[in-house]
C-alpha cells in the first residue's frame, strides 16, 4: 500500500530522530538537501500529494506558539500522506501541571509514528525523545537548536549559489538567544562555509570564537565581502533586560540597511528566518529587495521538512513488523 521506504536513507542517514545539527555530516546534510530539492520541484507541480507517509501519524506538539514552523510541518506531513494532528498545548493537560515526561508517555501510548516538538527549554526535546518509541523531530528547543531551519537555509543558499562550500556567511543579530544561529553554525561549518557572527557583545554567547566562527561587533566590518547575510530576529522582550538599549540604536548599528548591505558582495543573498521586525533588524526595502530570498526560505521550509520526514520514515517499523 505504501511506497517503498527510501533505501538510501537507511545507509546514508542512519538516524531515528533529528534533534540537533551538531554532528551531522556533510553527507547526511547533502542527502537531505537532495531529497528536498526533488520535493521542492515536486510541490511546484499541480499534483502535490505523495504517499510516503500513508497510514502514518504525525503529531505537532508545540509548547511554544508558532505559525510558520507548525504550518510548514503540517503541510509537509500532509503532502506525504500522513495523518497530522496539531496538539494545542495551551489548552491541554500541560497547563494542568503535567510534566513533560508524563506528556511524552501519554502520547507514546497512542502510538504515533513521528512527533514534531517545539519547547521553550533547551534540551526538552532530547528528554522527550528518550521516553517515546517513535521518531522525534526538534522544531526548536530554547536557544539550543532548530535543525530544519538550518537545513532549509542551506538548501536556499545551495539553490541560489549552486554551492555552500567556500562561501562566507554572516549571521547577524541576537546570536545569544538564537537556536537558528546555533543550528546554522553547525550545518554551514559541516558544508565548508566560513561563518561570521555579527552582534553587540551583549548578544553574543560566551566564547563565541570556540564555535568555529569569526566574531565581529562592528557590522560594517562583519558583512564586508560576504556572500550571504543572514539576519536574526531581535527578541524585543530582551530589551528590558538591557541587552540592547533601544530598537532605534539596534537598527542604527546592527540593522541591515542598504548602506551596510553595500559592504557585502554585490550578489550577496539576504536571509531572515522570520518573523521579521521591519525597521529593527532589517530595513523594509532590504527585506523586499531583489537580493532577498526570504520568501524562498519559507518555500524551502516545506520541501526540507518533507525530506526530513521521508528520511526518518525509512527507519520506522513497517506495517508488516507491527502486525
Amino acid at each position, binding site marked *: 500500500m505504501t511506497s517503498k521506504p527510501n533505501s538510501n536513507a537507511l545507509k546514508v542517514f542512519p538516524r531515528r530522530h533529528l534533534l540537533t545539527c551538531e554532528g551531522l555530516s556533510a553527507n547526511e546534510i547533502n542527502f537531505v538537501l537532495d531529497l528536498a530539492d526533488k520535493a521542492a520541484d515536486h510541490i511546484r507541480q499541480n499534483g502535490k500529494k505523495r504517499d510516503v507517509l500513508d497510514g502514518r501519524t504525525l503529531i505537532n506538539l508545540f509548547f511554544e506558539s508558532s505559525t510558520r514552523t507548525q504550518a510548514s510541518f503540517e503541510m509537509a506531513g500532509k503532502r506525504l500522506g500522513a495523518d497530522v494532528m496539531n496538539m494545542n498545548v495551551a489548552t491541554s493537560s500541560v497547563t494542568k501541571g503535567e510534566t513533560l515526561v508524563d506528556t511524552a508517555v501519554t502520547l507514546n501510548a497512542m502510538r504515533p509514528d513521528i512527533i514534531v516538538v517545539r519547547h521553550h527549554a533547551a534540551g526538552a526535546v532530547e528528554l522527550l525523545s528518550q521516553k517515546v518509541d517513535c521518531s522525534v523531530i526538534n522544531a526548536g528547543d530554547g536557544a539550543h537548536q532548530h535543525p530544519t531551519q538550518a537545513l532549509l537555509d542551506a538548501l536556499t543558499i545551495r539553490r541560489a549559489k549552486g554551492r555552500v562550500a567556500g562561501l562566507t556567511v554572516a549571521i547577524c543579530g541576537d546570536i545569544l538567544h538564537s537556536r537558528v544561529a546555533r543550528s546554522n553554525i553547525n550545518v554551514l561549518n559541516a558544508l565548508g562555509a566560513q561563518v561570521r557572527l555579527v552582534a*553587540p*557583545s*551583549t548578544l553574543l554567547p560566551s566564547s563565541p570564537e570556540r564555535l568555529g566562527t569569526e566574531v565581529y*561587533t*562592528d557590522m560594517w566590518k562583519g558583512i564586508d565581502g560576504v556572500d550571504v547575510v543572514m539576519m536574526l530576529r531581535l527578541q524585543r522582550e530582551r*530589551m*528590558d*533586560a*538591557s*541587552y*540592547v*538599549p*533601544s530598537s*532605534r*540604536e539596534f537598527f*542604527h*548599528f546592527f540593522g541591515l540597511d542598504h548602506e551596510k548591505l553595500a559592504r557585502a558582495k554585490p550578489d550577496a543573498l539576504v536571509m531572515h528566518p522570520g518573523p521579521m521586525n521591519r525597521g529593527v533588524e532589517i530595513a523594509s526595502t532590504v527585506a523586499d529587495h531583489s537580493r532577498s530570498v526570504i520568501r524562498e526560505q519559507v518555500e524551502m521550509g516545506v520541501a526540507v521538512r518533507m525530506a526530513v520526514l521521508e528520511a526518518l520514515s525509512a527507519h520506522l517499523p513497517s506495517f508488516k513488523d507491527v502486525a
Partner: protein
Amino acid sequence: MSKAASKIIEKPKSAGPATVFINARLLDPASSRDEPGGLLVKDGIIADLGSHLRRNAPEGATVIDCKGHVLAPGLIDAQVFTGEPGYEHRETLKTASHAAAAGGVTTIVVMPDTNPVIDQVSLVDFIQRRARDNALVHVHTMAAMTKGLKGEEMTEIGLLKRAGAIAFSNGKSSVVNTRVMRNVLSYAKDFNALVVHHTEDPYLSGSGAMNSGEVASRLGLPGISKIAETITLERDVRLVEMTGGRYHAATISCQESLDVVKAAKAKKLPVTCGVSINHLTLNENDIGPYRTFFKVRPPLRREEDRAAMVQGLANGDIDVIVSSHDPQDADTKRRPFAEAADGAVGLETLLSAALRLVHSGDVTLPAMLKALTINPARLLGLHSGRLAKGAIADLVLFDPGEPWVVNKDLLRSRSKNTPFDEAKMQGRVLRTVVAGETVYEYAGVERT
C-alpha cells in the same frame, strides 16, 4: 540655474593677531618640559614654544609678559556638576564656565545628574548648544549609562557617543544590578566608550551621613563604611576582567580602593581612577561642629586615607584629580547635617588647593599638574592638556607662591558652598586662555 554657480561658502577663519607669552616658566607634564621660555599663539593654536621665545617676541604679536610665572596647559576637570537643565538657581553652564575660567580650568566635563537626566541624544545636543552659546570654556558632557540614572536599562551608548557624549556615568549613584553593569561594560566596549562609575553600595552605606568611625560615633551620625566603596569597585574590576570594557572609578577615597585599582593595573586591565580635590586636602575632622559644606560623596575620610590618596597621586597610581564641583544652595545645605545635601563647589579653588600638596612637599608640581591636564585628556580622548606645537592654545598662567584668602562671596559660581571659605591659599591663577582667547585675567586684590 547652473550647478557650478552655487557653492557652500564656509565662514572664513579670522586671522587675528598672534599673541606671544614671554618670560614664562613653561611647564608641560606631557613632554616633561619645565624650562624658562615663551609660547606663541596663532589662530587659537600653539604655533611655537621654547626657550628661544623667552625674550624675543615676533614682530606684530601681542606680548604678554609672564614675569617668570608658570605657563601650563589649561586644567581639565573631569567631574563637574551643574544645575542646567533643571536646577539653574544653583548653577548654569555659563556660571560654571565663569568659575572654571577663574580657576584656570579650560575644559569641564559636566555630569548627567540634571533634570531631565542627560540620557538622550537630544539632551546631549542641548548641553552642547547651550555651552557653545554661553560658556567661556570647553564643555563636554558625560551621558547617563542607564536611563534616568536608575541603574536598570542601558542607554543608547552608541548614538549618544556619536552625538558627542565623552563618557558614560551613572552620576552620583552606582549601578547596583550586577548584570546591568556587566551589560553596560560589555556593550560600551563595542563602541570603545569609557564607563565612569561612582562606586558605592547603597545598601551598605544606607542612610549614612559621614565616614564611619570615631568622629561619626561622637557626633551621633550614621556612618558610611569604606567598604561600601571598595566592594562595588572590586565587583566592577571583576566585570572589567570579564568584558574588557574601559572603566574609570570616578572618585576613590581610601587606601583599600587604591589597592584594588593598583591590582587591576598590575593585571593590565583597562582600569583608571580619580580622586576629588576634597579627599586630597581635607579629612573628616574638618567637619567639626556639623559643617555641611564638608559633607561630600564619598564622605571625607580619616587623615590616614587622605595621606594614602596623596601618596597614590605622587606615585601615579591615581590618574586624575577632579574638583567634583557640586553647587548646592541654602535650601539643600542649611539643614541638619544628616539631611543636608552632599557636595562642594571647587572649580575656583582647585589649583590653589592642589598646590597645597606641592608646597607641603608631598607631590611635585609636574606630578600634580599631570593629573589635571594630560592624564584626563588621554582618558577622555581630548587633544588638549599639553603644550605642543599644533595643540589648541588652552593655557593657564599661575603664580604658585601668591598668597590669598578665599572669600566665598567673591566666588563666581552661583552657589557658595565651598569648604575652603576663609582658607589661606598659596598660589593663584593669573590668566586663563581658551583657544587663544583670554577668558580670565587676575586684576590684583579682589574686594566684595
